[in-house]
């Protein structure tokens, strides 16, 4: 059953040997030339399954990967019950929202400590389970790096996601994320990363600060 037709992958809810699973399939994109299209889809299928596993080593909950079929650019993984953080964040009481964002920040810190960059940190890629666990999904754009720049961009994306979808609570949420992040990576690294985020924001067409 087609659960979601995303921009780059289709998610199907299937039964797989008695397990409720998500089959994530990356179909060919007609707009790309075939060679580039295949490269991107293969690369992402491999990196996604690898980094979902690496994230677990970092202590970050992710779905269990059951099977990877590179040729069919398909991953079969555990179906995670719960709600996207995107759906619930705006309606939470302020204290709960801060606590949730704080925890998200801790998890991002754990990923970064283990050299994993998610590269698509949005609240739709985080699922809150009925057991109050946050599960990170969609590692399609993820990469391995410990560079400050890449970490900064990762968190910058988180901020941007908050700005576009949770614009009423941006400051509150992002501050909480950074608090949690700081607790995990330490003050020194956190302040370097924060500096980098400001630099990234100032670099492009981002703020009117520089006059």
């Amino acid at each position, binding site marked *: 059953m087609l659960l979601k*037709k*995303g*921009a*780059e992958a289709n998610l199907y809810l299937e039964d797989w040997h008695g397990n409720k699973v998500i089959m994530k399939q990356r179909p060919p*994109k*007609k*707009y*790309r*030339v075939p*060679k*580039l299209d295949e*490269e*991107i889809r293969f690369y992402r299928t491999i990196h996604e399954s690898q980094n979902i596993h690496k994230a677990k080593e970092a202590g970050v909950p992710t779905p269990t990967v059951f099977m990877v079929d590179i040729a069919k650019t398909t991953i079969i993984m555990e179906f995670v019950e719960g709600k996207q953080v995107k759906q619930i964040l705006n309606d939470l009481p302020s204290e709960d929202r801060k606590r949730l964002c704080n925890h998200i920040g801790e998890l991002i810190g754990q990923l970064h400590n283990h050299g994993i960059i998610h*590269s*698509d*940190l*949005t609240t*739709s890629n985080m699922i809150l389970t009925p057991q109050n666990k946050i599960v990170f999904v969609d590692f399609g*754009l993820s990469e391995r790096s410990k560079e400050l720049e890449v970490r900064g*961009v*990762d968190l910058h*994306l988180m901020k*941007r*996601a908050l*700005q*576009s979808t949770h*614009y009423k609570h941006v400051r509150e949420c992002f501050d909480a994320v950074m608090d949690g992040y700081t607790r995990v990576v330490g003050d020194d690294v956190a302040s370097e990363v924060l500096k980098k985020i400001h630099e*990234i924001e100032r*670099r*492009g*067409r*981002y*703020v*009117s*600060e*520089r*006059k």
Partner: protein
Amino acid sequence: MLKRRSAVSYCLGIESTADDFSVGIASFDGKILTNVISAYVPEKGGIHPREAARHHAEVAGKVLAEAFQRAKVKLQDIHIIAFSQGPGLGPCLRTGATAARALASYLRVPLVGVNHCVAHIEIGKLVAEARDPVTLYVSGGNTIVSAFEAERYRVFGETLDIAVGNCLDVFARKAGLHQEKGMPLGAMVEELASRGQTLIPLPYTVKGMDLSFSGLLTAAVQLLHDEKHSVEDVCFSLQEVAFSMLTEVTERALAHTEKSEILLTGGVAANKRLQSMLKSVAEEHKARFCVVPKQYALDNGAMIAWTGILAYQHHVTLPIEKSFVKLKWRLDEVPIPWGGG
């Protein structure tokens, strides 16, 4: 809600954010009467802000006169003066702003400061008949994926470093191409790319819905130096990678916002390959694909005039003493009281 002082009201818009000085005149009922564009073409290299501003100051009188002549509108028929207040290059913006202030105070009519990026979207909606699109705005200075949500044009994705048009222009100059009047560098790259066949691997950088083009540019220029591949193949590969990135983030924004239109605008919008990619995505999502015609996709005064009208109708005007230019005025800082739909 149209407010008319006489039978028909007009707005004169001045655009001068970068290398173009342009004057457009629009009527309150959405007709573009004229759109005169004078482009500054550097002898070599990219845009020098001061040189471009000098060009603008030189041609301002002539362009204004031509606009009035073509529109068959008299000075006293103008009810508002709009100008691009930012974002853009300081000296260029200030030249346009000075002309706008002078006109507004001479005619004793309200002055409206328009955000250049908002204007690109609004003129696109007007002339390409889009209602509530996901907009991909690609030019020499900007690369933005945006859609209207809660009183603003929210930025869903944008470049983390250089604009895609800048990437193509710099590459073209490194490849020894020279800009000519009526033949932008991007068009030359497009022409060469159409004869390329072999895809050479180049860095493809998408982060969330943001993009990066600087690494791609460096790698493509390196391929030129290596001299192992034909320039046609390098152009082909550069375009394929850059445009696939743009199309991917546009598709993500479309899926995310669940809107049903894609609007393509900006100087790079003229590229047929980019158009065909976005059209393919639109079809897949059963969305309409709208591309802004070239004269309104490039920087132009008509878009400033039309957006000035929308702003004025919603009581947004700017006292002359507060009409400073805003070099880094973000698209999503601007409240849009006239709504998205």
